[in-house]
């Protein structure tokens, strides 16, 4: 059965069916928990029940006596095996924060792995976990990062005042003067709660040690990084590690780098005679897979009496938990650098401080710097309300226009190829903003509270730096003329297989049904940094372009020789080489491949046998900028505090689209994660550091009844680079929280409510309304 549209002139830009779907729809995908190895053992972690405790004696004798238990490992067994521990994206020279495999000496959050039980069966392993007796001596924890800075109680002794690092500094004298003298000096503190990527598939891996080779099956966004990282941990060569992933059930940043449990399982596997599987359960995932977004900013913006921004400053503080991954200090700078956003802000500054707490690790999550947009866009709405100006009008007076580009913002971020004014206009036209304002006024007269909120942002995608700056592809046109494309992979729902097949079919003039792709096995795929940083579209397009151009030249040469035509007259289309203007003169790809492999005497002079090529793409620019505007309307029930989102519009400029279905799917998924963050999701701790949201009954993900129909608008400005493509994976999660917060705040503005703290649960909204009375 053909599930893809074949015979098209061009596949890029069309809504072709996904090549992933046939197996995933029928239960035949291969996620890590679906992999079984002969003799495989199962692991389960003993985790600290205390936010902070000295770890005393660990007595595993009762656990080891349980039939089926094969081993119990502690820090003493595993941690000495760690040779080097650092992430390729960061390099080994950053002042990295601590990251032991197993908790050693002290447990630093509830869920900190203290011991590892290995048994013949997961049920037995879980039984045995209950039998491991750990002598804990509880210590006072640092639970609230916001008050932890400068305190005497320390998460890590080596970090005075609990500060892992700080970048930037106080506002310059010029900026201070501009803010002090502005007609409107708006100063707020905005707080965001901890929430998390929460992929539907938890983390997991199987590690199989053969004596001098480690094979790992895992759920990852970046198989090659898992390979490099674990090779360093074990002190073996990169070529002694093979990492395999086929299907990964979502990542959103959580699976972009291996974490402490991955180290433990790989280390334990080297001490066992059989493969070892660990599949995280949901409770562990919500306890220990990390959190994001927990931060606040003291923000200040000066606006003149004509509504022009004269300066902006953010003093940003983020919770990094006990064992952040990766090093969080450098990445936080993006919050400050991007705080001016798509606006004309002549003077700006920032400081960002990363503070430890005895909670789950800060990890990457889709648009890790999104607080810049939340803080700026919420501040703009509050400023507009205080000034007495429509928030759209305030934005329009300050949004960068096309003729101002390229434009370096006041922190030096060099924007180019963006269209923030256009996306805002398009989204507001889709809404009919004026009509909504009329409807809102009528509703208010009738005692109903409707609101509209927006967010416009610019977003750096596809970083061209070091580890992320290159991507390779190998293309094999097989002897039959069928095509396999090999790229690093790391697809976690973002349709990299489909995208690569589309791009390759076009690059070689092949029928899409003749193209397949192999991804996610480090033994056969070229190095690549995987899914992250909204990089895959542009980078894979570059890799396919570079490699396909080598093969195109060869196909054309062989075809021209065969058809006795000039190479300049050969075109490749529908898996045939044809002589332009002479439709009858053609040779199939299958025939060319047959010649290339098996009839070398028919090859033109100087052309080698075979039809296989490898090449690498080097990013053409340090960053590809994308942008979008989100517009949300809602109704708030002022009695119950319930928010109903009525319309949700995203106008985005990601350049030309490889596959509009995939683009819109990314926007929708990211936006709904952002809606969840604004309204529901909260990885909350009590004052003793006990996590209170460790099931899906407590950690509330949006459901189908919570989300609106998302409407899409596209503005298409090509980026520098292959195909003009920009990144689109992360943006939805950046734009949604401020749009939702602003919509709720707009609805409640008549009641005098000002919103500066998330999430907007019904209880929080009722509290806001009551305290405004």
């Amino acid at each position: 059965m053909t599930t893809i549209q074949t015979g098209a002139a061009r596949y890029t830009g069309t809504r072709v069916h996904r090549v992933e779907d046939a197996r995933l729809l029928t239960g035949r995908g291969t996620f890590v928990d679906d992999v079984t190895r002969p003799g495989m053992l199962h692991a389960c972690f003993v985790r600290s029940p205390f936010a902070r405790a000295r770890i005393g004696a660990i007595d595993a004798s009762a656990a080891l006596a349980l039939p089926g238990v094969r081993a119990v490992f502690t820090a003493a067994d595993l941690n000495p095996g760690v040779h080097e521990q650092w992430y390729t994206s960061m390099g080994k020279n950053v002042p990295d924060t601590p990251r032991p495999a197993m908790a050693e000496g002290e447990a630093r959050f509830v869920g900190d792995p203290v011991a590892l039980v290995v048994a013949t069966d997961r049920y037995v392993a879980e039984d045995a976990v209950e039998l491991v007796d750990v002598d804990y001596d509880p210590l006072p924890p640092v639970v609230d990062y916001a008050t932890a800075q400068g305190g005497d109680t320390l998460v890590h002794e080596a970090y005075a005042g609990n500060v892992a690092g700080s970048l930037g500094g106080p506002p310059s004298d010029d900026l201070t003067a501009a803010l002090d003298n502005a007609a409107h000096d708006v100063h707020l503190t905005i707080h965001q709660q901890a929430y998390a990527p929460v992929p539907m598939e938890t983390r997991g891996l199987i590690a199989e040690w053969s004596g001098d080779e480690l094979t790992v099956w895992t759920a990852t966004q970046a198989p090659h990084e898992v390979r490099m990282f674990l090779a360093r941990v074990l002190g073996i060569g990169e070529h002694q590690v093979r990492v395999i992933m086929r299907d990964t059930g979502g990542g959103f940043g959580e699976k972009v780098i291996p974490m402490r449990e991955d180290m433990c399982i790989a280390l334990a596997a080297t001490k066992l005679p059989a493969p070892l599987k660990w599949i995280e359960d949901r409770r562990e995932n919500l306890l220990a897979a990390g959190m994001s977004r927990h931060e606040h900013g003291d923000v200040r913006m000066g606006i003149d009496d004509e509504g022009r921004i004269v300066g902006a400053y953010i003093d940003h503080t983020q919770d990094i938990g006990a064992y952040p991954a990766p090093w969080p200090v450098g990445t936080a700078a993006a919050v400050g650098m991007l705080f001016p956003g798509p606006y004309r802000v002549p003077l700006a500054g920032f400081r960002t401080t990363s503070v430890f707490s005895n909670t789950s690790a800060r990890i990457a999550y889709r648009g890790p710097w999104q607080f810049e947009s939340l803080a700026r866009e919420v501040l703009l709405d509050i400023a507009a309300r205080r000034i007495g100006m429509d928030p759209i009008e305030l934005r329009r007076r300050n949004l960068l226009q096309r003729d101002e580009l390229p434009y370096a913002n006041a922190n030096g971020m060099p924007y180019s190829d963006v269209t923030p004014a256009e996306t805002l206009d398009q989204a507001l036209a889709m809404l009919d903003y004026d009509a909504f304002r009329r409807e809102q006024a009528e509703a208010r007269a009738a005692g109903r509270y409707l609101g509209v909120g927006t967010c416009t942002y610019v977003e750096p995608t596809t970083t061209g730096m070091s580890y992320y700056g290159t991507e390779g592809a190998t293309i094999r046109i097989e002897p039959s003329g069928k095509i396999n494309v090999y790229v690093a992979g790391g697809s976690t729902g973002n349709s990299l297989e489909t995208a690569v097949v589309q791009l390759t079919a076009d690059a070689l003039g092949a029928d899409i049904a003749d193209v397949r792709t192999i991804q996610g096995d480090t033994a056969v795929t070229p190095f690549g940094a995987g899914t992250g940083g909204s990089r895959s579209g542009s980078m894979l397009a570059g890799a396919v372009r570079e490699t396909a151009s080598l093969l195109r030249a060869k196909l054309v040469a062989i075809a021209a020789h065969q058809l006795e035509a000039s190479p300049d007259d050969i075109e490749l289309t529908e898996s045939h080489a044809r002589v332009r203007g002479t439709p009858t003169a053609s040779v199939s790809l299958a025939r060319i491949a047959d010649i290339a492999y098996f009839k070398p005497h028919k090859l033109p002079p100087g052309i080698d046998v075979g039809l296989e090529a490898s090449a690498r793409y080097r990013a053409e620019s340090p960053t590809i900028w994308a942008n979008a505007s989100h517009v949300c309307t809602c109704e708030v029930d002022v009695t119950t505090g319930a928010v109903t989102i009525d319309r949700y519009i995203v106008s985005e400029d990601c350049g030309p689209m490889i596959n509009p279905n995939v683009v819109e799917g990314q926007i929708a998924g990211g936006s709904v994660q952002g809606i969840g963050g604004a309204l529901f999701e909260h990885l909350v701790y009590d004052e003793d550091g006990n996590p209170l949201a460790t099931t899906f009954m407590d950690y509330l993900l949006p459901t189908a009844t919570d989300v609106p129909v998302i409407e899409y608008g596209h503005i298409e400005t090509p980026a520098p680079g292959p195909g003009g493509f920009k990144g689109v994976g992360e943006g939805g999660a950046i734009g949604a929280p401020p749009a939702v917060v602003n919509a709720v705040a707009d609805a409640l503005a008549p009641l005098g409510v000002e919103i500066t703290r998330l999430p907007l649960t019904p209880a929080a909204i009722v509290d806001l309304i009551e305290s405004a009375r």
Partner: protein
Amino acid sequence: MGDIEIELQVNGEASRAAVPPRLTLADYLRERCGLTGTHLGCEHGVCGACSVLLDGEAVRACLVFAVQANGREVTTIEGLGGPDGDLSSVQAAFRDHHGLQCGFCTPGFVVSVTAFLRDNPDPTDQQIREGLSGNLCRCTGYQGIFAAVRAAAGESTTAVAVGGSGTDPGS
């Protein structure tokens, strides 16, 4: 407690085994039957990824013990399409409307929707949303899933009828 003998029908085939009483139906299907399309997303009955049909009713296989399925009929995601790989109308609608991304939650959705459309062949939009609200998806924002169910509901419902306990989809 010793193992218990069970015999059930799985996707139309007899399945017999001696199982521990605490073995979940999900683990039985995945580990004993090799039917790994039933996925475990939470193991506490909220996410719906492990949904299967038990005598035609959608249930969470993580909340059912294998012994409770003794003598009953189970249909998993692997049993919904045609034997030659043809997609059911619900599966095809998910493909046509980008109703899946990573695919981890997808089997649970397809199973739940299959039962939902059998019982509600002409649902309103709100009924569809409520019907979907027992399954969690983190990738799609439910946009493609909703569109897929809307489209599948518009088609003939004959293709979605699955073995069951005598529920008459036409009544």
